[in-house]
Each structure stands twice: as structure tokens, then as C-alpha cells.
């Protein structure tokens, strides 16, 4: 039953993503065309509150509910993997109008053709695993 809290958080996430319309292909197009503030408002609010909260956690060494320190591991220094990987991700994000979270929210919403997108996202992840040693990182 330790997992029930993650189920509840997932449910809230799914509802918020659907009701904010962040799972909509139309909204992603509107964002990439800079024709509304909506998506920037969502991401901007989340990041602004996130920066403040993470700074507070670090400043006061706030611990998690197990009593362990909340650690933020720095990501590996590199440019190539983040830039190239990011560009490939962005191409797919604009085309399908969904990043991984919204894909499954859409499936729950009833857009079952999104199962195809999600299945191929798994295939794409596998393809990365196969090719990773040959890619610049």
C-alpha cells in the first residue's frame, strides 16, 4: 500500500494535464507559434515555484518522510547529448503534440490512437539503448 500515494499523485497529474489542456496537440502548436501565454504560464509557474521550493529545501536541509536528506544530483556536464537529444525530442513533441506524460493521459482520456505514439516512444527508447555507444554524449 506504499504505492497508493503515487497512484493518487498520478491521478492528480493526469487530471491537471487534461484540464489545463497541456495534453492537447492544439495547445502545443499554439505554444510553438507563440500565439498564447497559456503553456508558458503553466511551465513558468511550475518552474518559478520549483526554483523557490528547491532553494528552500537546500537552505533548510529539509528531509523526506523517511527522514533521509533530499538530494539533488547534478546532471553530467555535456552539451552534445542535451542539445541533439533535445532537438530530436522537440521534433517529435511538435509532431505528435505530446511528451511522454501527456501520451498516457490522452489514452485515459479516450484518444486511443495515442497508444501508437506511446508504443513507438518505447521503441525509440529501445533504439537509443541499441545505438547509445555510437552516439556523441
Amino acid at each position: 500500500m506504499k504505492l497508493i500515494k503515487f497512484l493518487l499523485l498520478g491521478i492528480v497529474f493526469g487530471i491537471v494535464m487534461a484540464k489545463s489542456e497541456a495534453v492537447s496537440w492544439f495547445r502545443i502548436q499554439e505554444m510553438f507559434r507563440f500565439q498564447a501565454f497559456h503553456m508558458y504560464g503553466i511551465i513558468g509557474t511550475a518552474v518559478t515555484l520549483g526554483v523557490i521550493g528547491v532553494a528552500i529545501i537546500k537552505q533548510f536541509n529539509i528531509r523526506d518522510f523517511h527522514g533521509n536528506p533530499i538530494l539533488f544530483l547534478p546532471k553530467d556536464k555535456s552539451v552534445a547529448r542535451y542539445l541533439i537529444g533535445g532537438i530530436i525530442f522537440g521534433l517529435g513533441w511538435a509532431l505528435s503534440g505530446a511528451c511522454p506524460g501527456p501520451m498516457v493521459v490522452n489514452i485515459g482520456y479516450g484518444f486511443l490512437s495515442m497508444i501508437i505514439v506511446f508504443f513507438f516512444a518505447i521503441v525509440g527508447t529501445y533504439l537509443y539503448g541499441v545505438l547509445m555507444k555510437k552516439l556523441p554524449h
Partner: protein
Amino acid sequence: MRELITQTWAWWFSGAMIASIMFFLLYFGQSFGFSSNLRTICAAAGLGKTNKFFDFNWKAQTWNIVFLIGSIIGGFIAAQFLSDGGPVNISNATIQDLSKMGIAAPESLQPKELFGWDAVFTVKGFLILALGGLMVGFGSRYAGGCTSGHAISGLSNLQLPSLIAVIGFFIGGLVMTYLIMPLIL
């Protein structure tokens, strides 16, 4: 009152809820990153036998798979109980731009020209969905995260790699939107 729920939720409320979810996950000893699930699914499918990248203790990621299942349920609840089935309330400028590519004004959350079964069962329609998914899956693992892991969690921790990744997301998104989509749609 009911209208407050069925209409599009405000950006500030939605953004604050997403930040809250990130903090709850941190408090529960985990971190917010959705695309890790794609790798976990590969590992759970036994692909670790042939590829070391998928040979890890994926059961430790069960919490995130449960979060994913919750997300599906959340989408279902939103559609069944919290929506009036109205179209996405996007700007007129976007509607006009999209009509030039043959995408009609919204009737629901998604364009039927891309996600309707009539479109999906054409070669072009299928390839659009398949290639879109393939690039999202490949790119998120190559970049080490997606919108949640980099744009939300990473930027909140002021990580330069995440900023580079987010810049990449936008370069890719703009190239697709302005240069490639007008050719293929």
C-alpha cells in the same frame, strides 16, 4: 460552480499543481521524471537480456509505473466527469495558421485529422504518429529526460544541462512546426 471545473483550468493553478506534484514526489523520496518509465518498460519486457542499458533493477521504479497508471486514470476521470466535451480554447491566430495546413478548428482536445481512426489507418497518418513517438522516446532518453525531468525538475534545480535540453526541445519544436509540418501535413 460546475463551470469552474469543466472550463479550461487556469495556467497559474495548473502550474502550481505541477510544482506541488514535484514536491510531493521529492518528499516521498523520489523525483519527477516521466520518460524514465519508457526505459523501465523496456527493462520489464526483458530487453535487458540483450542490451545492458535495460539491465537494471527496474522493480525499484515501480512507484513511477504506478504514477503512470494513475495518469491514465486521471485522464479518464477528466474526460468522464470534469469536462463538457467542448473544444480546446486556442487562439484565432493558431486556428488560422493550422487551417492553412488542412487542420480544422478544434472540436475536442485533439485534431481528428491526426488522431481520428480514418487518419490513423492511412500510411501517412500512421507514420506521423509512429515517427512522432519514436523521436520523443529516442530524444528523451538521449537527452536524459523529457519535459518533466528537464524543464520542470532540472530547471527548478538550476541545472545548465537541463537548460540546454530545453533549448533543444524548442529548436526541434520550431523546426518541426515551421519547416517540416507544412511539407508533410
